[in-house]
């Protein structure tokens, strides 16, 4: 029941994010959305995912969006909405196909699901001897999928460097401009 209420809240917040034009308010609503998703993750027993969601979604993302708004503008420009029938059909068909695909998935918590029949026993029973890390999530992330995790870390690092290069810091830019001015001033006489 708590799930249903929270999912309703999520839908309401999502619609509000689309409808509200004040971007600062949208940023705050995004933070609320992340917190609600985090509660849902905890209810689904995915506590670590929930922590990441709360820290990144409600903390870091909101700050990044606020910084972006500070660099640009606060109001969303309203474009005249064109009714695009083709896009609507494509979206509907894709959504219907995705919902149809979920019918093939085993029900939530089904002990007969393929993931619980051979994958889970393999990792829960063998990983303490093979890897020697008590936390099995860590042993899967850091050892079985180590190269994948390394790739993720490289991607995130590259993204962070890219963002920092694009944004820069105001001080550096200002210093460079003043240096340019100084050079021009020196060239003029």
């Amino acid at each position, binding site marked *: 029941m*708590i799930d249903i*209420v*929270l999912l309703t*809240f999520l839908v*309401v*917040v999502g619609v*509000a994010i689309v409808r*509200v034009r*004040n971007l*600062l*308010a949208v940023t*705050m*609503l995004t*933070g*609320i959305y992340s*917190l*609600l998703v*985090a*509660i849902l993750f*905890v*209810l689904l027993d995915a*506590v670590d995912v*929930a*922590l990441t969601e*709360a*820290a990144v979604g*409600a*903390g870091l993302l*909101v*700050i990044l969006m*606020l*910084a972006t*708004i*500070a*660099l640009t503008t*606060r109001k969303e420009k309203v474009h005249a909405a064109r009714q695009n029938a083709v896009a609507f059909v494509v979206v509907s068909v894709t959504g219907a196909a995705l919902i149809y695909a979920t019918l093939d998935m085993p029900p939530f918590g089904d002990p007969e699901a393929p993931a619980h029949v051979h994958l889970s026993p393999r990792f829960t029973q063998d990983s303490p001897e093979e890897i020697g890390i008590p936390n099995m999530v860590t042993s899967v992330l850091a050892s079985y999928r180590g190269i994948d995790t390394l790739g993720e870390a490289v991607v995130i690092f590259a993204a962070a460097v890219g963002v920092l290069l694009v944004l820069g810091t105001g001080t550096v*830019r200002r210093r460079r401009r003043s240096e340019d001015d100084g050079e021009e001033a020196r060239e003029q006489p």
Partner: protein
Amino acid sequence: MFLATALAILVTLALALTRAFLGPTIHDRILAVNVVGTKTVLMIAVVGFITGRPEFIDIAIVYALLNYIGIIAVLRVFEDASLAAEPTNGGEEESP
């Protein structure tokens, strides 16, 4: 007992959400985010007791810390960036 608490928390969540939707000023909305964060902490703790795993309290405490730091950070950014940027709005063409 715990279910009643969970229900009460859901009701307050709904109230905070309406404040976030209606809130005329940005401060109302920041406050709403903070309230929702607090309700998240309470909700996780209560859910832990409902499902018979009081260890969830630890996670709730971590959430409380995150919430606090997050709101402080948001307020700092808000104070430094958007409010300070308002008077210099005319100088937009300065950015390369």
